[in-house]
Structures are given as C-alpha cells and as structure tokens.
C-alpha cells in the first residue's frame, strides 16, 4: 500500500488546519475541527470526527494565549487522527501518538518563529528605504513559507512514518492497551485543570462546583448548564456594574456620564 496519496492529503489537512488557526482565529486548531478535516480528506469523515472528539477532551485546556503554545495540539490532532484512520487502530492509540507529536510541533513552530523574528528588522529597513514593494513581498514570502512548511511536515510525516508507527502499534501488548484506554479517559482532567487556572478566582470557586453538581447529581446536559450559566453571568455582571456606578459617580454626580455608559452597552 503506497502512502503517497494519504501523505499528500494529510499535508493538505495540516496546511488547512494551520491556516484556519491563524486566519481570523477560525478555531481550526481545535482537535475536533482538525480531526474532521483529516477525516474528510482521507475519506473517513465519521472516524475523523470521533477521534477528533476524543483528542479534544485531552487538549481541552491547552490554549495558545499571547502566542505562547505549550503543545501544538493542532498538529498532534492531525497526525493522531491520520494514524488512527490509516492504521484503523483504537482511539486510545491515536491519543497516545498525538502526545509526543504535539510536542514536536511546538519545536517546529519555534524554529519558524525564530526565523520570523529575524525578518522583523528587514521589514523596518525596507520601510526606512521607502520601498513598500519589498516590504509587501517579504510579507508574502513569510506567509508562503509558513503554509508550505506545514504541508511538507504532514507529507513527510505520513510518507516516512506510517510503516514504523504501524509495527510499533502492532507490538503493543493487551494489558498496555487497556491501560492506555483508562488513561485516555483520565487525560481530559489535565485539560480541564489548565482551563481552570485561566479563569480561577477564589471568590468564584462555588460556580465550578455548581456546574459539576448540575451534571453529576441531576444529569443535566451541557446545553442546560450553558443556559443557566448565561443567566447567572448576566446577574453577576449587573450587580458588579451597579456597584461600580455608585463609586465613581458620587464625586462627579454627572448624569450625562451614565447615559454614555448605557449607550456603550446598547451598541
């Protein structure tokens, strides 16, 4: 079985995923979407969506904030799903494979970012020389290099790696396999914990437990929790605002101030 065609498709998938991660923050970096893209391109959309969902849970809390990316979960998801589909292996194997690959992805991206950083003074030089054409050309080059880099990454990874990965996966003994399945169920805890850190505030802690209780005790769905959560968030916002308004308006006492604020919110 030749791997050239799937390798080409995964290269395309990785490029689309990276493009949609940055262009307009479309959310293509999320494993759920990345897995779907791979699934469509490899001709197994349903598998792609399912594996993507399992990976999404593992990387739930991994987000790239302020350009810092702890793990390249987008690339991990693309390769994990691709190997999962190509080797028709279990989802837990796809997860286990995606973990080291996502770390490799970070390394690749860091190399690119170092190159991009080296370009920054050149952009400025072109502007100082009043040469906007060169400025624009350089910008187009960095975009092309970025997208091409990911295509090659996906192509080479699948074309060269699949047979090695296949023999590795086949050699996994059964108890290890069931351990991996248990781990796959537990790993979402890391993602959730990471997410908690970004939002945590000791005063807000009870809301976390309330969300847990609605699902765990009363078997609520995520949509039901979201519905209740929006109501509570609005209530919290309103009470915060009325507190804020009382403080600054006492020294100034201007009624025009508050009407401007309301205009801002009505927009």
């Amino acid at each position, binding site marked *: 079985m030749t791997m050239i065609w799937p390798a080409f498709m995964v290269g395309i998938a990785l490029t689309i995923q990276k493009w949609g*991660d*940055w*262009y*307009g923050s479309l*959310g293509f970096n999320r494993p*759920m979407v990345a897995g779907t893209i791979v699934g469509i391109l490899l001709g197994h*959309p*349903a598998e792609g*969506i*399912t594996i993507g*969902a399992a990976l*999404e849970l593992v990387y739930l*809390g*991994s*987000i790239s*904030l*302020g350009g810092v990316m*702890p*793990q390249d979960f987008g690339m991990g998801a693309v390769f994990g799903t691709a190997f999962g589909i190509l080797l028709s292996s279990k989802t837990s194997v796809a997860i286990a494979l995606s973990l080291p690959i996502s*770390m490799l992805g970070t390394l690749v991206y860091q190399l690119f*970012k170092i190159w*991009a*950083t080296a370009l*920054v003074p050149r*952009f400025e030089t072109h502007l*100082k020389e009043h040469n*906007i054409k060169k400025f624009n050309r350089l*910008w187009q080059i960095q975009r092309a290099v970025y997208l091409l880099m990911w295509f090659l990454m996906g192509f080479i990874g699948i074309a060269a790696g699949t047979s090695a990965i296949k023999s590795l996966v086949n050699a996994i003994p059964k108890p290890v396999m*069931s*351990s991996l399945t248990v*781990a796959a*169920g*537990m*790993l979402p*805890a*890391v993602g*959730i*914990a*990471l997410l*908690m*850190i970004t*939002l945590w505030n000791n005063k*807000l802690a009870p809301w*976390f437990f309330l*969300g*847990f*209780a609605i*699902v*765990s005790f009363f078997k*609520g769905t*995520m949509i039901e*929790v979201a519905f*209740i*959560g929006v109501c*509570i*968030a609005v209530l*919290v916002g309103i009470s915060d605002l009325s507190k*804020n308004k009382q403080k*600054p308006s006492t020294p100034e006492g201007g009624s025009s*101030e508050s009407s401007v604020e309301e205009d801002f919110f009505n927009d």
Partner: protein
Amino acid sequence: MTDQVQKYDSFLTDKHTEKQFYRKLFWRQNWLMFCTSYTKQQAVTYSWTLEPFLEKIYGKDTPEFYSAMLRHQTFFNTTPMMAPFIMALNLSMERENHDTKGKFDVTSITAIKSALMGPFAGLGDSVQQGALRIIATGIAIGFCQKGMWLGPVLFLLIYNIPNFLIRWYGAKLGYSVGQEFVQKAMANGIFKTITNAVSVLGLMMIGAMTAQYVTFTSTFVTKAAGQTFKLQAVLDQILPGLLPLVLVLCCFAYLRKKNRPVRVLVAILVLAFVLTFLGLTGGKA
C-alpha cells in the same frame, strides 16, 4: 457631541467609500497572526493591515506615509478578535493627524494602542477562550463522539459567529468613537465586569465538563463473606462523580503551583498503568 461626529471626514467621504473601507479592513485584519515574532509579536502584520489605508490618507510613497508605517512597527499583541477596534481607532487618529497638518500629537496614536492591547487581550481571551469556546465545545462534543456532522458544524458556528460580529462591529465602533471615550470606558471598570461575568460562566461549564467528560471509574469487584463488593458502587454512594472531581482538583492544585502540564500528563499515564495492573481499573465491570 453630534457636531464633532459630523465634522468633515477627508477619508470616508461618502457611503460608498465607507462600505469599501470596512470591507477591506475586515479582509485584511484576519491575517493578523501571520508573521508573529518573539520581539514584536503582531506588529509587522498590524502595519501591513493598515498599509492601503495609510497610503490613501497620506498619499502613495510620501515620507508621511513611511513615517506612519514605521510608527506602527512598535510591539503589538492582543486577542486577534479585538484588534479591528484598535486598528480602526488608530486610522481615525491618523486621518485626524493628516487633516490637522502636524497639530496632532502622533505619540498618542502609539500610546492608545499600547494602552488598549493589554485590557483588550484580557477581555478577548476570557470571552473567546473562556466562554465561547467552552460553550461551543461542550455543546458540540456530544455529537462529535457519535461521529455526527452536526458536532463540528455546531462548534464552528457557535464559536465563529460572535468572533466575526465582534471583528466587524468592533471596527465600526473603533472608527466612530473618539479616543477620550475609550479612556473613559476603561476607567469605569466595564472591562473588569465583563471579564468577571464571563469567568463565572466559564467556571460553571468547566465544572460540568468535569462531571461529563472525565472517565475515571473503578472496575474492582471482589467477593467477601458471600457478598459481591463493587468499589464503584460504594464511591457513587459517597458522591456521584467523586473520582473525576478529585482527579481534576489534584491536577489543578499542582498546575497552579508549578506550570508543568507535560509532567502531569506523564503522571496520569503512569497512574493509569499502575491502577490497571493492580486490577482496580480497566477490567470488565
């Protein structure tokens, strides 16, 4: 107030140019993340986005155009979704600078940019990553687990419709409101209020996800004194979902002190192996 707004605008002269301006800005700002660097983050593409508009304001290849482009080479980093507001606000200031012929203090252009990017990033990240993404994921993932198309489609819609509405209307708002208005809005704590409310929503969703999506149950069964003893049944009597909750809280407590997620990932893998080999998990329930 209305007199100021209706002041002659040399840049957006009529309805047609106005439409063109917002459309062009919208299509260009989407590229913001490309060419992110360690030293200046999004600065290069920020200036690239403004390029055609600055060209129109100051004229092609004029020294004023190039000095404006160089002005926008300063460090810039914010949630991409929030950038159109700042870009449009900057362009309205550049236009004013051109119209007043040097009476405008150009340092304020860079100053407002630097002043806004921090709070906007805080607000944007908590709205986009903390609330929108979690709600979209929470709702969509159930469908995804069944391999249904609806899952990814729902995720993209719930996540992206507000994303692009904020970009589009952010640009419109940014061009039309003055810089003083922005400073006022920052002073009276609106950003903090929204961030706080969004965190409440986000934390509730995270709590719900803990119960819904962390699978950690014991399959340990033994016979003692003629009765079958199921460990999980006992745990469920204490508190439904106890193991997932404890696991998440342990991860959280560790990660909060030491931000080393990879270590925790490895620790969980090891724990899963140990528990399975001891026969506590992974058997047939």
